């Protein structure tokens, strides 16, 4: 079990994110349909599929993240373009100088990315958005890392917190985005952005773990 993975050649992690979004397309739209406008799957899939076509499979993790971020910002629009674009851009920028990525670096980068996302979107935990996944997941990773857990356990902690954050949105009343207009009627439904964010973080955890396993 390794405690780091090589940045170079790890574009496949990002390609796996793209594939996971592609597979969740209909489910994401369905979740968005309950209290939003039903296009979250379409929006996400368009961006991630386009990015997957542009990503050089032999490139580095951080370069692939940059291509994904640029594609989202430049070609997708919506809310998800700037939000996920900023998130992945921040991750990419933080990791681009590393040849090998360890838990500490990854955790710091993740925390920065979650912060950039919060700043741009003006969303806070509890608003019933993808922030309710990204923030607790990044915090759980860092907490595990700080108590000395290995990279792989940190990833498990992240994945668990991501899942819990995702599920927690069901009980929340939306305060931002289209669903906010529903007021109390938004309670009892999962949030779409939280759903896609969880798909992304679960896939990320699985893929990096696999790399650490060798």
């Amino acid at each position, binding site marked *: 079990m390794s405690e780091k993975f090589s940045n170079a050649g790890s574009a496949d992690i990002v390609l796996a994110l793209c594939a996971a979004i592609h597979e969740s397309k209909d489910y994401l739209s369905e979740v968005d*349909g309950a209290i939003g406008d039903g*296009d979250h799957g379409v929006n996400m899939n368009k961006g991630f599929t386009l990015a997957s076509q542009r990503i050089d499979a032999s490139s580095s993790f951080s370069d692939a993240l940059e291509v994904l971020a640029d594609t989202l910002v430049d070609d997708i*629009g919506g809310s998800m373009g700037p939000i996920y674009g900023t998130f992945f851009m921040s991750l990419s920028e933080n990791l681009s100088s590393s040849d090998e990525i360890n838990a500490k670096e990854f955790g710091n980068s993740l925390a920065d990315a979650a912060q950039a996302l919060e700043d741009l979107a003006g969303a806070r935990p509890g608003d019933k958005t993808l922030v309710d996944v990204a923030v607790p997941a990044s915090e759980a990773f860092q907490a595990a890392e700080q108590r000395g857990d290995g990279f792989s356990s940190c990833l498990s902690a992240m994945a668990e917190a991501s899942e819990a954050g995702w599920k927690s949105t069901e009980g929340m009343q939306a305060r931002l985005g289209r669903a906010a207009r529903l007021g109390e009627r938004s309670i009892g439904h999962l949030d779409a952005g939280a759903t896609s964010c969880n798909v992304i973080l679960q896939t990320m955890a699985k893929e990096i773990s696999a790399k650490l396993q060798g």
Partner: protein
Amino acid sequence: MQRVINDPDMLVEDMLPGFLEANKSLVHASSENPRTVVSNFVGQGAPRVGIVSGGGSGHWPAFIGYCGQNMVDAVAVGEIFSSPTAKAFEQCIREADSGKGVAVLYGNYAGDNMNVKMALRRVEKEGIHVATVVANDDVASAPSDQRDRRRGVAGEVLMWKCGGARAAMGGSLEEVIACAQKAIDNTRSIGIGLSPCTIPSYGKPNFSIEPGSMEVGIGHHGEPGIKVEPLKDANGMADEMVEAVCSDLPFGSGDDVVVLISGLGATPVMEQYILSARVFSDLKDRGISVYKSYVGNWFTSLEMGGVTLTLMKLDDELRECVDFSVNTPALVQL
């Protein structure tokens, strides 16, 4: 719904060439970005403040239909009901700039806010002077003490009309921004939804309205309104809408207003005139005079059923702006 489309995921790609060809005397696409529609009048005559807008597609004639002479100079085109990219907004700003700065006049939606913010960050590095006005005329979308949370709806048309006119009159960026801001500050709207619409790529209605009921305060992507009520007749709807709008900003006796009534897509214009008849008489009863009115499909939501009412209170400057001539694909005024 049976549609006239090719690929449901490619509506915007498939629509733009038809729009551009049909309106080639007025608009063209930027050579740098196919999602940036530019008025042919940009660069003609003396330099003036550029007017930029943009938003999701599916709201015809918003947004591209208002691109042309003396209204909007460049429009960023998004996917259906989805904000355009920051890149498209950026290119709009570059195209609209003739050295006197650019006013970005858009609606208050999370995506638009973020994409415009990212675009601004980039073009300001290029030395272009940019300022924004964010439309928030929908009284149903938040209480009056939280106007910054309110959505922009059909009142945006009047904001563009006034901002565009002020720019054409030679106003500075500050003057144009002040005028557009005043226009939207003096404007209130409300919508009533009667039937849902379907984003073709999703394939099913993303909300439902029970036959026999209506949703008061619906947003133009189907965002839920403030209440669902038994369906009223046209007079009942008009009374309710006039009350909602007039009680939000004290439009009162002696005021001059512009009335803009729009269908949401599926409601025939004839029915909008039935509504108008009562709106006009309700306003008269309140001592409010209608200086000018626009009735038709000015800001739609795909094939949603329903109507919106927008009132703008006039002062001398806004009156002059409303009267100013425009020549765009959707609105031509002598």
